[in-house]
């Protein structure tokens, strides 16, 4: 199972027996394009599965969850950020994901929705290749703020504080899953997708903070 880094905690709860490779959705896409032995691809966006579907490498992707982008700051909040506008203050060390990774794409959409693109991008000191790295930089206190999913913020509870985004800023973060055509065990892959979509799988996702598809 190739799955987005944001699914690192929840997927093994749904299916403990599977073998997982978690990473940035963009990196996983490249790996599948290069013939990596994946049976299922679950991404934190519709873009990467759609691109693979267009190339005929995966079956039609299905939306299985939604997620919410939030701003997190270290518990000690060194830059005193209390609302999303705080990230535009000069000297704030902001970490976001690469534009090719869903979390980076969503962060940029949020900047655009809030009309703070120039000021916010000026404060970006590091760009990561998956969301877990962004969480780590903030949890360690190296960065003053970072944009991640609410589900990751929950997982790092105790080390970070969550600053919600205003409704108009929120990009629609959707998680898609698809069976990889070159996978060895199509039946097992289908079964996995069904399990994720099943009431039980959905309940596990809800419990981890993911929204309804």
């Amino acid at each position, binding site marked *: 199972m190739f799955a987005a880094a944001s699914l690192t905690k929840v997927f093994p709860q749904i299916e403990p027996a599977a073998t997982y490779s978690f990473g940035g959705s963009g990196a996983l896409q490249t790996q599948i394009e290069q013939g990596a032995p994946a049976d299922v691809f679950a991404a934190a966006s519709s873009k990467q599965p759609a691109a693979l579907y267009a190339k005929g490498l995966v079956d039609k992707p299905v939306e299985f969850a939604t997620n919410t982008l939030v701003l997190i700051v*270290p518990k000690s909040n060194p830059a005193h950020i209390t609302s999303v506008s705080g990230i535009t203050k000069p000297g704030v*060390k902001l970490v976001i994901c*690469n534009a090719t990774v869903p979390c980076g794409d969503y962060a940029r959409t949020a900047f655009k929705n809030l009309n703070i693109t120039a000021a916010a991008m000026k404060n970006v*000191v*590091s*760009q990561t290749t998956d969301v877990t790295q962004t969480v780590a*930089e903030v949890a360690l206190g190296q960065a003053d703020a970072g944009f991640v999913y609410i589900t990751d913020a929950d997982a790092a509870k105790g080390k970070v504080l969550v600053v919600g985004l205003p409704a108009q800023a929120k990009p629609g973060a959707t998680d898609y899953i698809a069976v990889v055509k070159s996978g060895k065990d199509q039946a097992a892959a289908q079964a996995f997708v069904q399990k994720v979509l099943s009431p039980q799988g959905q309940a596990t996702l809800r419990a981890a903070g993911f929204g309804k598809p």
Partner: protein
Amino acid sequence: MTTAAPSGSRHYDQTWWYAALGRAVVSVGATLVVVVVMAFLLLPIVALFTYQPVHDLVNGFGTKVATDAILVSLKTNAIAFAIMIGLGTPFAYILARRRFPGRSVVITFVEVPLVMPPAVAGLGLLVAFGRFGLLGHTLTVLGVDLAFTQAAVILAILFVASPFYLRGAIAAFEAVDATLIDVAGTLGAGPVRRMLRVAIPLASGGLGAAAAVAFARGIGEFGATILFAGSFQGTTQTLPLAVYSLFDANLDQAIAIGVLLIIVSAAILLTSKLLLGSWTSSRSTSAYPGERSSFARP
């Protein structure tokens, strides 16, 4: 078995054939082993060089991401290299010349970063020098914030690469005939002069080779840098970090930068071999400066 044989004896005849057969099997086997190992080592390099047309490859070298990463890599590595030589050379000289209790412990600790996974080195640097690390508060008071700066990149390179120099330099100094240095002393040369004018020139081959290996390691440094310094184009994104970052965005460009790194590393390796003066010697397998005979002089 009735054809001409070196001996009329049937027994001898058989032994001769078996021996010949044995030699043939051994030489075919030996060739096969060499071919398989070489193919395994060279294939990924060949694949990287031939992945895209040469034209695209050369274009990849010139992209903004690549040129930014080249500049960051050159600058941070040059500074780290200067610090490594400036501090590491006297350090290695002292350790090679002096005998004191705990010397072997010191030398062992010098080598620890060599066997430490780079990601662990990055974590160590984070919890030591990070904003909330051991020295983080002290540094903040002093107005130093290393997070996501080129200084952090330099520290990561120094931590991971300089032990290669230190270890080689200690071995190089140890291989210098101590009586020559002592004689210089009796002729009135002070300790600094003895090191600069006698020991360093005598150990220069080994020092140069060790420095080249450390430089190559520094250019390729990845794990500690991404954890400790982050990755941002034009500031902290070195060549290996650019490869990693481009992997999911533009594989062609990532490979072009990868090829560039291979060329640079190969050039450094060649330099170190030449410095050791063992290029023509088939016995020398690497620029490992610990091999005394290759640079010890009469």
